[in-house]
């Protein structure tokens, strides 16, 4: 915690250097990989802020999953585990199928009529095709790239989820404790507690995204899917949300799609690198970035393509 005692020294910007690691919030800690030396492939990572996971439980299992849109294969035979207690990041160049794979985890791909899925995805050893979609999507909730709070008050955005889950007591007072706790888990409560009837769309972008996370958490999910949750946000809000994601990993299994390699390195415990629908490498974050097993991974993380 000594890193918090003094402000970081002022650095001059040097285009040759990677951006400095940010220390954010009291929850930020570093593990043994902190201050990683430039890696073999030239990937110079920011500091890891994440301690090694305390435990990991296998919750979901993606098994030989292929997804086709008509004749086009978006995902080709991907297998990987999703564990609670860890953050899994999906990285890869645009159009490599990582978002499609993420959306298939709670059967959102089924909304696209042309999508066909083969292979199996299991949640606690039950094939998700056997689980009724709305029940599945409550256990596996999703946060999107663009913050999409509903055009209601902050309170109603969260209460909507609770009401639709068939909560009998739909009076405002009865829902308040659960709404507050969801906002607290998303680290938004302190900022909005005085004005819960404020229109959600008038919040800042970072607050909106945290509201969306709070909404996803209100459903008491077991798995949380995040589709580039920070790509529309400024660095400050990004840092807050990254902290939040790391804090959540013990309670829910977190899968995050990101274009930002630094971000993947900062918060993920395992990283899956996808390229043109193939899963090229699935490895622990430190290994994948510092000593990738595959040549293509090395090229990607060192910025050779993508």
């Amino acid at each position: 915690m000594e890193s918090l005692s003094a402000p970081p020294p002022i650095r001059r910007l040097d285009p040759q250097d990677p951006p400095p690691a940010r220390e954010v919030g009291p929850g930020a800690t570093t593990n043994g990989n902190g201050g990683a030396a430039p890696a073999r492939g030239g990937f110079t990572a920011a500091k890891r802020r994440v301690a090694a996971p305390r435990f990991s439980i296998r919750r979901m299992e993606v098994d030989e999953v292929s997804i086709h849109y008509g004749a086009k294969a978006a995902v080709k035979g991907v297998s990987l585990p999703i564990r609670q207690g860890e953050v899994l990041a999906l990285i890869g160049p645009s159009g490599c199928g990582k978002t499609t794979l993420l959306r298939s985890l709670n059967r959102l791909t089924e909304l696209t009529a042309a999508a066909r899925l083969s292979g199996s995805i299991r949640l606690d050893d039950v094939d998700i095709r056997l689980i009724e979609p709305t029940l599945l999507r409550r256990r596996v909730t999703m946060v999107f790239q663009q913050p999409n709070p509903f055009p209601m008050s902050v309170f109603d955005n969260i209460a909507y989820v609770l009401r639709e889950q068939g909560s009998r007591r739909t009076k405002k007072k009865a829902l308040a404790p659960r709404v507050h706790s969801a906002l607290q888990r998303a680290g938004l409560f302190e900022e909005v507690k005085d004005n819960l009837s404020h229109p959600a769309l008038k919040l800042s972008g970072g607050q909106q995204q945290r509201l969306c996370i709070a909404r996803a958490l209100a459903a008491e999910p077991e798995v949380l899917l995040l589709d580039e949750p920070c790509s529309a946000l400024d660095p400050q809000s990004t840092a807050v949300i990254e902290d939040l994601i790391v804090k959540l990993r013990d309670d829910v299994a977190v899968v995050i799609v990101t274009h930002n390699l630094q971000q993947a390195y900062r918060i993920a415990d395992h990283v899956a690198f996808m390229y043109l629908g193939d899963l090229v490498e699935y490895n622990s974050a430190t290994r994948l970035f510092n000593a990738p097993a595959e040549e293509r991974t090395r090229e990607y993380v060192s910025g050779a393509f993508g």
Partner: protein
Amino acid sequence: MEGEFHPEYGPKWSDQRVERLLGALVVFVVGLLLAMIAVVVARAWPSFAHNGLAWFGAGGDVDDQLNAISLSGQNGLDYVWTFHAWPLIWSTILITGGAVVCGLVSALFVSVFIVEFAPTWMSNVLQPVVRFLASVPSVIYGLLGVLVLVPFIGNHLVTEPEKASVAGVISLTGYSLLAAVIVLTIMIAPLMVSIFSDGLRAVKPGWVEGSLALGVNRWRTTWKIAVRAARPAIVAGTVLAVARAIGESVMLAMISGSVGFPPNPADGLIFIYEPSRPLAPTIVKNVDQLSSKPANATLFAIAAVLLFSAALCSLAGWIARRAMRKYGAA
């Protein structure tokens, strides 16, 4: 400086010309509107002045009153002003209200189906069909009503005992509130469907997807998110439909029965078979008697009431949309 030409920058006021032209057009249109309102109110004034608030009340047979008014002033007769419009107003409220409520409910379900649930090919077919229906001239609906619906109601729905029960008061022939409401609903519903479905299509896909991703099913998402977000469009469509319904005259003159009779709910459910005549068709019916000064003023008074109702309705819609904008529903 104005009009000065600079070789590199062009004339200084090139944009201002457009501004002024459009400004002049706006002033002209607004002026025309105000002039129209002023003329209608000024010409209507004698009728309101002679009757006071009783103009809107009940009393006597409104058709007899209209007759007396149009004959007065001719052949040295004195002017007659007495006019109690309640039967016409009541008929307008019943027919417009009935049609708007039926239209709102059915249009909402139809547009939700078209936008959210119908397969693509079907909504591609339905969309132009609805737009076409919204533009069918009302006289065609009137003709169909007179030739098909009115005889059907008169011959098959109204029973002889029902006709006998009100025999001394009014005769039930099929020209009725029911026929008017049904045909008016068919007339305004496509207009509402087309505006509602535009509104539903404009709902941000992210909201719908976000709700689905939280485990809320399609049906609930549609009503709680999509329809909710489309409320301003629903209000706008309803306002337009109400305005069209209030102003509809030819079709209603054909099938409402064209009798200055207030359908009486105290008669039981058969009051929907009773004939009446709303305000707008009354103008059409009496338009050939404008030579008499009181008749002239009376018709203008009816026009003023219609104008005022339409304005009130737009205002209510505006207020409702403003209230909804608070949470950012587009």
